[in-house]
């Protein structure tokens, strides 16, 4: 066991405190509005905190650190598209302003209003598959992180996963948006403190010269210059940047766990302001963990163990080896809590898409009757249990090729290009039609599907597959809309 009594006391006290705070706040929740969107009472600072807590879990740190550990300083380029995407949406209100004015709560809802219920159903399937495959690697990666930091032997991975998910399930049941927002506030205190402390302690351990030396001697120019061998062919070159900017814009519009925070804000002005300032927060959310990976690379290169270490194990080992007791307990508690809010949010998001948008709609279509609210609740619980079992199974048996970050991006890409193109053109192009939306979603899913099915052959073309998804989705939308406008010009069309 790597923890001493002080660490353990801090961790248990913190987890109990979070549950206690959550259940105290629960008394304020009187209706579904309070439960889902905190009565639309979320202000700017809480919105920012809540967004950060949802989008930061142990896995976030692990995949960014893996990039830094394997690709060096050049991989810091991954942080810049976040700034571009957030500032663009925050300043222009592109698409999101319209959606907030329409009082849209979920992206699929937009599809049934603008196109058809069939498109919504189809998108729901891809969203569920992409989202669950994405979520499916969380327990395995995080349980491994916990095992390395705590010193629990690797053969107990399954038990750690089950333990982690049980705590999460309890947390979700306590939940509701009000308690999530309040507990997020407490979590953010530790989270921000931990991020700054790890950076300073890690940097002190190796120094800037030590980092540059290790990276340049082991990785060469490629480890420092993202445009090596040239602007177009570098791993983090132009293709990567274009793909990531499009990807991040799409996620801010179509990723339910993120856009739910936007829709919960007081008004569209607050929502846009949250996105504008999130640019800086999300820049740090990427830069700092990538930097920890680079620190880990320099640190273990000096010890001579870097070459035998897996990229995903770099960060937990660094935390275990460098952070002193007491502080270790505090930081670990913060990480655990961060993961809990991410899990709660993701579990609710993806399970609700399966139970409401897919299964619920299918039952309604077959029986021609609405499900009673009791049956809906039962269905959601069954789906949640199935999703949990699936992600444990997937975590145990799925082997990830290439960077974890790219795998996670590609699972999201199954529906993201089609979503962005259909939403953007649906808002701004009056000729966008249902057939166009079907083709955009289908075409956009092909490149990521190839990446996920043939990972070994295609890993090195990740960027091309990435921006290619958006190009073919756009082509699909134009072709489909032109065909439908030509051959069925009188079919129903709603223009916003």
């Amino acid at each position: 066991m790597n923890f001493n009594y002080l660490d353990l006391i801090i961790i248990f006290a913190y987890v109990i405190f979070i549950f206690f705070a959550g259940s105290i706040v629960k008394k304020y929740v009187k209706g579904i509005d309070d439960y889902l969107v905190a009565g639309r009472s979320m202000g700017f600072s809480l919105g920012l905190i809540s967004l950060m807590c949802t989008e930061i879990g142990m896995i976030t740190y692990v995949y960014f650190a893996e990039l830094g550990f394997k690709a060096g300083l050049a991989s810091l380029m991954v942080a810049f598209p976040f700034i571009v995407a957030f500032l663009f949406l925050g300043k222009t209100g592109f698409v999101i302003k319209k959606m907030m004015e329409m009082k849209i709560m979920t992206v699929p809802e937009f599809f049934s209003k603008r196109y058809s219920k069939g498109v919504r159903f189809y998108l729901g399937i891809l969203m569920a598959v992409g989202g669950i495959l994405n979520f499916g690697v969380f327990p395995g990666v995080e349980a491994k992180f916990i095992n390395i930091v705590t010193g629990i032997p690797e053969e107990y991975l399954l038990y750690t996963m089950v333990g982690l998910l049980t705590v999460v399930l309890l947390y979700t049941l306590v939940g509701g948006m009000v308690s999530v927002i309040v507990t997020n506030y407490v979590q953010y205190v530790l989270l921000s403190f931990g991020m700054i402390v790890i950076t300073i302690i890690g940097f002190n351990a190796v120094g800037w010269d030590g980092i540059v030396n290790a990276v340049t001697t082991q990785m060469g120019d490629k480890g420092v210059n993202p445009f090596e061998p040239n602007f177009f062919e570098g791993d983090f070159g132009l293709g990567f940047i274009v793909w990531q900017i499009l990807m991040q814009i799409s996620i801010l519009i179509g990723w339910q766990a993120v856009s739910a925070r936007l829709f919960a804000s007081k008004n569209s002005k607050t929502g846009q302001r949250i996105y504008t300032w999130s640019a800086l927060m999300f820049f740090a959310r990427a830069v700092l963990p990538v930097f920890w990976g680079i620190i880990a690379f320099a640190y273990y290169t000096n010890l001579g163990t870097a070459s035998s270490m897996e990229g995903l194990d770099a960060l937990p080992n660094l935390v275990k080896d460098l952070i002193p007791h007491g502080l270790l307990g505090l930081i670990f508690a913060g990480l655990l809590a961060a993961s809990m809010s991410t899990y709660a949010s993701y579990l609710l998001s993806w399970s609700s898409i399966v139970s409401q948008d897919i299964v619920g709609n299918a039952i309604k279509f077959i029986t021609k009757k609405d499900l009673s609210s009791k049956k809906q609740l039962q269905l959601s619980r069954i789906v949640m249990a199935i999703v949990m079992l699936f992600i444990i199974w997937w975590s145990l048996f799925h082997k990830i090729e290439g960077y974890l970050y790219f795998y996670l991006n590609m699972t999201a890409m199954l529906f993201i290009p089609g979503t962005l193109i259909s939403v953007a053109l649906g808002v701004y192009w009056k000729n966008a039609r249902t057939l166009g939306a079907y083709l955009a979603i289908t075409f956009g899913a092909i490149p990521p599907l190839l990446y996920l099915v043939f990972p070994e052959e295609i890993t090195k073309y990740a960027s091309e597959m990435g921006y290619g998804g958006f190009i073919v989705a756009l082509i699909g939308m134009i072709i489909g809309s032109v065909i439908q406008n030509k051959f069925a010009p009188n079919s129903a069309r709603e223009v916003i």
Partner: protein
Amino acid sequence: MKFWEIFWMISIGFALVSFAILSVKVLINGFQEVKDMLTTLDERSNDSE
């Protein structure tokens, strides 16, 4: 090569400092917002009772 070393050093420094300042700011303002939110919800639930 020197250009990139300096560029990354500035980026990391900027990320760390701006994150620290912004975090302190949102935590201070967020505390007041938590109190306001709970007061609003409390008043609303009292009214409905």
